[in-house]
């Protein structure tokens, strides 16, 4: 089985009684290893909800989700936490970094949590920071970095431990379009070089275009799902 993520008829309702919001209505999809997939759709269509279901930050109302072959609906809170630490990398829209840690320390964080030995950590962090173009900025604190640079640190942290899957909820929403394009280029390159699997959500048409596959949501349902070349036609 090559699927890193598999969803089967996933429903998510928020609220109770009269004010139930059906955020996801029967979503089924698979994401394979090495894919670079964008989730698009209007505001409120369920993009963030989908990503949160996959990472186990939220539980589906019904349906099943497998990540790396494991059924996450059967996992406890701490098992999910462990799964996220060991198998998933994250890039958020903002507040990605710990303000009290330097770029180096932020990138190192996940490795530390995982108990990777010091020398290995050092090599990996130095290499990844160099790769994302932050060589020489290791000692800077987040407030001393630009928005784009901060997101690069976040990307470095997300992939430094070589997770099965990198989830990014609107990673470019807080940066200008040029920076966004550069960040997407970086992700695409990493996807090529290291075979990292990326799943990100976005509003931005230019950003969507950098993905190899596009899933379009509307009202919690899949409107389109396919390779970008195919969709363009």
């Amino acid at each position, binding site marked *: 089985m090559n699927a890193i993520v598999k969803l089967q008829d996933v429903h998510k309702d928020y609220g109770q009684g009269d004010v139930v919001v059906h955020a996801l209505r029967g979503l089924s999809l698979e994401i394979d290893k090495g894919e670079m997939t964008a989730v698009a759709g209007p505001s409120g269509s369920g993009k963030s909800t989908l990503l949160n279901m996959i990472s186990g*930050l939220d539980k589906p109302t019904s349906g099943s989700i497998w990540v790396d072959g494991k059924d996450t609906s059967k996992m406890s809170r701490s098992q999910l*936490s462990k799964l996220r630490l060991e198998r998933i990398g994250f890039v958020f829209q903002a507040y990605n970094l*710990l*303000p009290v840690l330097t770029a180096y320390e932020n990138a190192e964080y996940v490795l530390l949590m995982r108990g990777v030995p010091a020398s290995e950590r050092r090599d990996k962090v130095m290499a990844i920071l160099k790769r994302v173009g932050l060589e020489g900025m290791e000692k800077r604190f987040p407030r001393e970095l630009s928005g784009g640079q901060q997101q690069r640190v976040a990307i470095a942290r997300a992939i430094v431990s070589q997770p099965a899957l990198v989830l990014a909820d609107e990673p470019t929403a807080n940066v200008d379009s040029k920076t966004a394009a550069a960040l997407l280029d970086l992700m695409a390159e990493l996807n090529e070089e290291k075979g990292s699997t990326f799943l990100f959500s976005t509003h931005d048409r230019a950003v969507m275009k950098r993905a190899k596959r596009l899933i379009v949501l509307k009202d919690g349902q899949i409107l389109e799902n396919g390779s970008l070349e195919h969709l363009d036609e």
Partner: protein
Amino acid sequence: MSLLMKLAWRSLWRHKRRTIITIFSIAFSLGLAVFFISFAEGVYAELIDDAVRMQAGHLTIENKDYRQASSIDLLVENLSELRSEIKQIKGVKSTKAIIMGQGVAKSGRGAVGVAISGVEPKVEQSTSPLAKKIVAGRYLRAGDSNAVIIGKNLAQRLKLENTRELKKLHALLAPLFSPLLQDEELMDDLLRIRLSIGKKLVVTTNDVNGQMVEELVRVKGIFVTGAVQIDGYLIQVPIDFARHLVGMKDDQATQLGILLDPDTDRQEVISSISAVIANEPDARSIVVKKWEEVMPDLAAYIKIDGGSNYIFQGILIFLVMFTIFNTILMSVLERRREFGMLMAIGTPYQKIERQVILETIFIAAWGVLLGLVFGGLGGYAMQVNGLDLRQFYPEGFTVSGIAFDMIVHAKVEIPTLAVIGSTVFGATILLCLYPMGRIKRIPVADVIR
């Protein structure tokens, strides 16, 4: 430095001002509490010290029924032997034999009920504060026979001074003194006291057989302790004279008082003394008592006053706790996003809780340490220099017959500091459990959106 330590440390210094304010408010309140507690302990210690030295010692050997019916025939026998054995016990500083009885003091112009205390002048001179409170004349001496010292108030009530003498002196001195002493009454007082010295009075009491006896004594000195119960009621005579008066033998007294060295384990001394007593011929009638049993009023005062003191300190410390609680809660709530992000990327919430505990420990440890140092040093300064309360209480202050020394000294006790410090520290750690509990409940999916 471990990651958690690094996070805790840097997070605290990220809010430098808040951290410092919190640490200092802990230090300030705790320091204040420590200072006042040291003060109270100092005052109580002095009070107890004065009382036991003036009266019947830290421990008192007496007839077991003496406190119910303070009768002169309830005796301690075989005194000198008992004494020499007790002096050998470790922790015993000195012993004093006392005869305590009731009687009446009569002058030509009045009669007043008094407590007659037969004391050993030599022993008292080196231990009793009363010997240092003589304002006119002198204290009792070893060779004195029909001698007495009385308090100022008693002297006034007995009107010992010769009226004609007083008037003469008054007239003579008034023009000289009135510019200096605005208060004529004060001058009168001084003259009266002065003129009482050497006057005669008659002491009446019951002897050991219950017969009325009386004897003429001469006033050798006047004391002022500041406590009306003492100054208007107590008279001291040499113990040999007292024995002669009530018909006791040389080897008898109503009390044997025992003064202890500082920091002596009292319980240990009590058991040693009890062992000595058990071999005495009158073993069945005499017991050893603590000063709290001999002076229950004083013990009760210290208990009540100490209690109210502790309530006040408790409130102070409660405020400290509230400050810490508030700071920790605020620091957790404002980092919901940060913590949510950490949990999202797979940090177990327990790790974050540990970070918050570390932060709390750091704040509490510094606050407590500084507080103990501030309060301890402040208290120590008051221990060495003392604080003069005369300007606050010009008329003095007495507790159940014991006058406070108006220059009070604090007493800084390391065990007390340790107890207060660790209580505050422990309570702080307990208090941070609530903010910590909030971490677990952060809705991660919502805060990272």
